[in-house]
């Protein structure tokens, strides 16, 4: 079971990407009329996040293009630094929001 805060963070990042992609998707011909509904959904989502977690996410977003990055082969795909075993165990248990020790980005174990 995925930690709720981590799940909300991933959903928040997906929502931020969707808001950024609006113009591109519109060019292909899809109807995009509800940007304000997405922004409302984003606001509601941020209310579910703890303040320190949200602050961490927003700071990382300012610094990097993506605040949350996947882990593949025990490596952070943001900075390509190997994730220490202790963090892998904690991360895989899905009980914590884990930041990469190299770049600080939030780690997501997609498999």
């Amino acid at each position, binding site marked *: 079971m995925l930690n709720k805060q981590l*799940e909300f963070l991933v959903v928040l990042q*997906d929502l931020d*990407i*969707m808001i950024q992609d609006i113009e591109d998707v519109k060019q292909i011909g899809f109807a995009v009329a509800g940007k304000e509904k997405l922004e409302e*959904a984003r606001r509601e989502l941020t209310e579910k996040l703890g303040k320190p977690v949200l602050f961490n996410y927003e700071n990382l977003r300012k610094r990097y293009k993506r605040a949350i990055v*996947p882990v593949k082969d025990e490596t952070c795909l943001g900075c390509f630094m190997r994730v220490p075993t202790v963090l892998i165990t904690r991360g895989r248990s899905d009980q914590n929001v884990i930041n990469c020790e190299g770049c600080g980005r939030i780690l997501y174990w997609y498999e």
Partner: protein
Amino acid sequence: MQVVWANKNNNTHCPDKGEGMDNSELTQYFNPSLFNTKLKAKTKLDCLEELTTLFVENKDIRTGGIVLTMLRERELLGSTGIGKNVAIPHGRTTATMEVKIAFGRSETGIDFGSTDKKPVKLIFVVLAPPQDKDNKYLPILGKLVEVLSVLKNRNKLLKVEAFEEFIDVIEGK
């Protein structure tokens, strides 16, 4: 409806996002495990859930919740039902590492809130990572719209049963 469909000569007027990608390249994003010609869902949300489950079962994503939320939120922006019985729910998600497309067909049709009000029978769910290799996401969406804008292709897709037949249609054979 903003998607412009093919005319009698099958010339489409879609924006050029699909250009530079040929039909056979598009086929590599499909998978027999992400192919269901007998969707049970009767509603849009159930349909999204049924197709999201295929990605989980195929181990493309860990859990369906995040992707399902993303797809529902995408529908808030505007229906992905593009008319002519077609819907292409899509989005980038942190939950996947590669671009993948699931295909589902509903015999009875599902109300997707398409602008032409027609029930949707052909559904393509396109998932892409936030930064996909070679940035293929938009060309894939564009190419898919282009293929589906051809009446002959839609008619064939309404009848295909085997995955190989389906791929032949996408390839334009």
